[in-house]
């Protein structure tokens, strides 16, 4: 469904990705793992069109994505929930969600989708008039995911959804992702938290020094020496 091949990218003179290849299949829940600064966000931002790759290809349902503007990519159904959540702080929960469902592809289903988001995260329903910026980190993560879902994603990409959250909230978030996956959503989840991700995802790839060092199922990856090296620098 989403094929990444030979992806190179960087910032100015610094190159970060040195030929990344992997494929996200329809219905997968893929963990994109790697240590801090490995280049995970750079990959996901290339996919969203926020960072321009220097070379390589990204194909989504057969269409080349490189060079497309971010809003075009989102409107195709490839939707990112960004690192640090980036909710709209001086807007209500409701307005945040409405904005997420404001694209051409999503607007007709906006109120139905809102019900589904509220069913997934009842906390958002309770707090729907609250200013988003005054919510806790975990609640903001729920909102960021809800806002992404409002856009009717075919693929939902999350960048470190557990970052800065308590273990309890991390579990709630991942349980919600698992439920979405079981309902048929394809998920790409960038994470540093190895064990949490492997417990919920169907497979994973490990990024090390700008290339995919190893890929496989959860148990394969957990004890793989390359995974350990990528994380611990062993």
């Amino acid at each position, binding site marked *: 469904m989403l094929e990444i091949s030979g992806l190179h990218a960087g910032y100015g003179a610094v190159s970060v990705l040195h030929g990344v290849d992997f494929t996200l299949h329809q219905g997968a829940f893929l963990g994109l793992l790697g240590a801090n600064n490995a280049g995970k966000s750079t990959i996901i931002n290339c996919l969203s069109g926020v960072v321009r790759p220097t070379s390589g290809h990204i194909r989504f349902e057969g269409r080349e994505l490189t060079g497309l503007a971010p809003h075009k990519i989102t409107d195709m159904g490839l939707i990112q929930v960004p690192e640090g959540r980036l*909710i*709209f*702080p*001086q807007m209500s929960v409701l307005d945040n969600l409405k904005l997420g469902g404001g694209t051409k592809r*999503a607007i007709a289903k906006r109120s139905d989708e809102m019900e589904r988001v509220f069913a997934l995260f009842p906390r958002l329903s309770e707090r729907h008039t609250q200013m988003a910026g005054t919510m806790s980190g975990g609640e903001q993560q729920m909102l960021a995911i809800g806002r992404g879902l409002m856009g009717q994603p075919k693929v939902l990409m999350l960048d470190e959804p557990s970052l800065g959250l308590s273990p309890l909230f991390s579990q709630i978030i991942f349980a919600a992702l698992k439920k979405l996956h079981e309902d048929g959503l394809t998920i790409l989840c960038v994470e540093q938290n190895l064990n949490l991700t492997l417990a919920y995802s169907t497979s994973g790839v490990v990024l090390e020094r700008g290339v995919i060092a190893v890929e496989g199922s959860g148990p394969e990856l957990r004890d793989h020496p390359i995974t350990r090296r990528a994380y611990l620098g062993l």
Partner: protein
Amino acid sequence: MDLFLQALSQGILVGGTYALIALGMAVIFSVSGMLNFAHGDFLLIGMYLAYAVFLSLNLDPYLSVLITFPVMCLAGAGLYVFLLKRLGASHLLMAVQLTLGLSFIAQNTLLLTFGGEPIRVPSVVETDLLLVGNVIIRTPQLIAFFAALLLSAAFYATLNFTDAGRRVRAVQQQPRAAALIGINVPLVRTLTFALGIGVLAIAAVLIIPGTSMAPAHGLRWTVIALITVVLGGMTNFVGIFIGALLIGASESLATLYVSGTLGMIVPYALFIALVLFRPEGILKRT
């Protein structure tokens, strides 16, 4: 007492137009983080455009706005697309310099085209007066005030209660996330610039009846817009409207009680005091 009421009402009515000009500046600031120091010069361009339309088609300013509004919208869009967008968000200081440069270009172009003499454009209601008690109200000022009030209210409602307005606020609060949820951020910015400059065409024809214009007036209008925006708390439209009325009223009262030229300084003194003691604007809750 009559004199006081006279000055107060006149100041408040003028303040309505100040609000409109300031809203244009605020809306541009809110989506781009940039203060347009050529704002007053764009207002003057709007006024001279109305003058040119009057010269060539003999149209009343109130009608010529149908022509000058789209022209000014295009100018605003062009300003963003061809100049400011290229600078990017990281060069705010350069953007400020650029708008200052534009201000000089605009002023000198007007000077070359229309000369430096103050000009008046006649209008149907120019000399109409209204008597409320013992207070004389000039009809064009009344029209200007209510038009400005209506437009500001429409601005406010659009921004807060429509999808288009939510998009503008999203771009203002978190542009990166706005792009990721499918908002065409450059387009929103372009349209906001178009509207922020376009509204000056409307403000221009509201000011024209009974007011003279000269190319050198631009800076004064820029300063009025700037202090109104800062008083209002930069992006708080209600605050900006109230701030504009305050400035209009204080200017008018000070001119009456302190003396002509010295009185013009009072709003600026008030502004400096507010910036020192309430830099977050008059309405901001803390």
